[in-house]
């Protein structure tokens, strides 16, 4: 279980996060959505330990984040950030193998290569293995980075380790991706959750969250606006008051996941509340 309680982050006079609490259980995929500047990425940074919050606590598997030995934590928890840039001529496979660093000695073993192959197949980049990373397109780079974090927490098939107690944090993994790859990546995250991993994902598109996540956490101005199952959270009221768009939410009978239809706005700010 990934547990953040009453996280507060203050920058100058501004409260970027104000008492935000969020839990992700094993086998669950939780999405954080909200407009730009709502504090989504900051929340992910606080929950990953990249940023020390001014208040509140983060626990992973019942242990405080700071109490984990860094290497042990790295074997169970991977983080995909938005700014993983790399200008040096590694091959895509080498980048993915860097993800296996916490598991291997100086050189990779068969299990490490197997984890890399499985992760690269999940994100559809097997055919790029020998390509030089800097020459890849933005979307290809993004999928190689995702394969890297998947490989990082991959359970070793030979020892039949459980996926419970593994954690994946993704910050806008659909950035730079075309439509098909957006869904490929989200489906890969969903499969990991179904296999027992606790997945926390920051997303822009409410429909992505609605289609893949078990729970949606909506942030606005650094506060929790709503949290719960997609069909309870996503309403036309929420779409207008948080995102500032006029929308209709379809809840078809027989389908447990809602779908948000957004109307083209008449004026640039119609429906906005700020």
């Amino acid at each position, binding site marked *: 279980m990934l547990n953040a309680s009453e996280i507060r982050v203050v920058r100058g006079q501004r409260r970027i996060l104000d008492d935000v609490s969020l839990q992700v259980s094993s086998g669950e995929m939780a999405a954080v959505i909200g407009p730009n500047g709502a504090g989504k990425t900051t929340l992910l940074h606080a929950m*990953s*330990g*990249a940023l020390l919050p001014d208040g509140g606590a983060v626990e992973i598997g019942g242990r405080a984040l700071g109490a984990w030995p*860094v*290497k*042990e*934590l*790295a*074997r169970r*928890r*991977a*983080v995909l*950030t938005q*700014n*993983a*840039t*790399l*200008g*040096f*001529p*590694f*091959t895509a*496979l*080498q*980048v993915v193998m*860097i*993800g296996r*660093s*916490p598991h291997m000695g*100086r*050189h*990779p073993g*068969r299990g490490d*290569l*197997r984890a*890399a*192959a499985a992760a*690269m*197949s999940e994100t559809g980049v*097997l*055919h790029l*293995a*020998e390509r*030089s990373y*800097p020459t890849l397109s933005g979307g290809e780079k993004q999928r190689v980075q995702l394969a*890297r974090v998947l490989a*990082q927490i991959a359970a070793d098939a030979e020892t039949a380790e459980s996926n419970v107690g593994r954690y994946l944090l993704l910050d806008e993994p659909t950035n730079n991706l075309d439509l098909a790859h957006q869904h490929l990546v989200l489906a890969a995250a969903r499969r990991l959750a179904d296999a027992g991993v606790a997945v926390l994902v920051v997303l822009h598109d409410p429909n992505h969250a609605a289609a893949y996540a078990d729970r949606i956490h909506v942030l606005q101005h650094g506060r929790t606006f709503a949290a719960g199952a997609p069909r309870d959270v996503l309403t036309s009221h929420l779409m207008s008051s948080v995102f500032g768009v006029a929308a209709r939410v379809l809840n078809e009978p027989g389908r447990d996941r809602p779908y948000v239809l957004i109307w083209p706005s008449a004026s640039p700010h119609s429906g906005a509340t700020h």
Partner: protein
Amino acid sequence: MTVLDPVGHFIALARRQSRRTTLAVLAAVAFLLVACFVTIHGGAIHIAPLDALRMLAARTGLVDAVPATDALSVILIEIRLPRIGLGIVTGAGLAVAGVTLQGLFRNPLADPGLVGVSTGAALAAAAFIVLGRSLAEYLSPEILRHALPLAAFFGGLIATIVVYAVATREGRTDVAALLLAGVAINAMAAAGIGLLVFISSEQELRSLNFWMLGSLNGITWSRLAFAAPLIILPTLLLMQFSRHLNALLLGEAEARHLGFQVERMKRVMVGLVALTVGAIVALTGAIGFVGLLVPHLVRLMMGADHRTLFPLSALLGASLVLLADLVARTIVVPAELPIGILTALIGGPFFLWLLMRQRDQGAW
């Protein structure tokens, strides 16, 4: 392209990669041996490789000495061989320091000379020589001379910390700030050394040219024996950070998430780079561009993996410094060109090309 058996394919790739690395290391070792032989042979006085071997054998008592070669023997053993030793550790050390700085700054433009580490060390060394005169009453000249690499180490350390503080914010290095900080430190160090040379009549201090352009001239076995471990040891230690640097190239936060203790390893690496460069500069002055040129050549041929990059850069750096030194002491016989002029002649245009390429890629 569909891969039917990706794991098998990756295993084959890994095998091919390690074969290529082994071959490249063997080739680099062979190149270094050739460079050594050429360097033994060439110079104001030619020594044939066979004669050199015979003289070495005589020296170690394997065969009887040949009287006619006594003068040659002195040149070989007291002048040329220590100079080759210095060239090897200097080239290897500078190349490894360059690889490390480029990894730390996550930018291929970092070089001990360009970012001011070498000249910072040179200024500290020059200052220590001048100040050392007032310490001469208490300490023997021998101790003072041996403390020189340590003084240079502190100069290099301070320069590295200043450059890092100026150029890096939250783990991201601003290339312009990095190079401008280097320009500033180089200018200040040149002024400082120039001033010291101007006000002091100290023999040991040599010239501004020596400190800013470097030379392998005048090395003795005793000085080399003291300084070489100070170069070799930190160089070997730096080469253990290959996996750390691979991860660091993804970003500091990413390396942390991969389980590396980023702050600690950065501090250790900065210290080791300063030690390596300081010990080198104390003996040779600031030789530029080796740390820039060599790692880049290796990356072009073998990719960026530090497990390959470190050993190959060390070997290639050693060979290139040997050959550059050979040209420096033969091209204007009987005089000698400062070796830094040669490395700058090759490295300068190369650096401009790198800058233009980085700009075109929108790196800054």
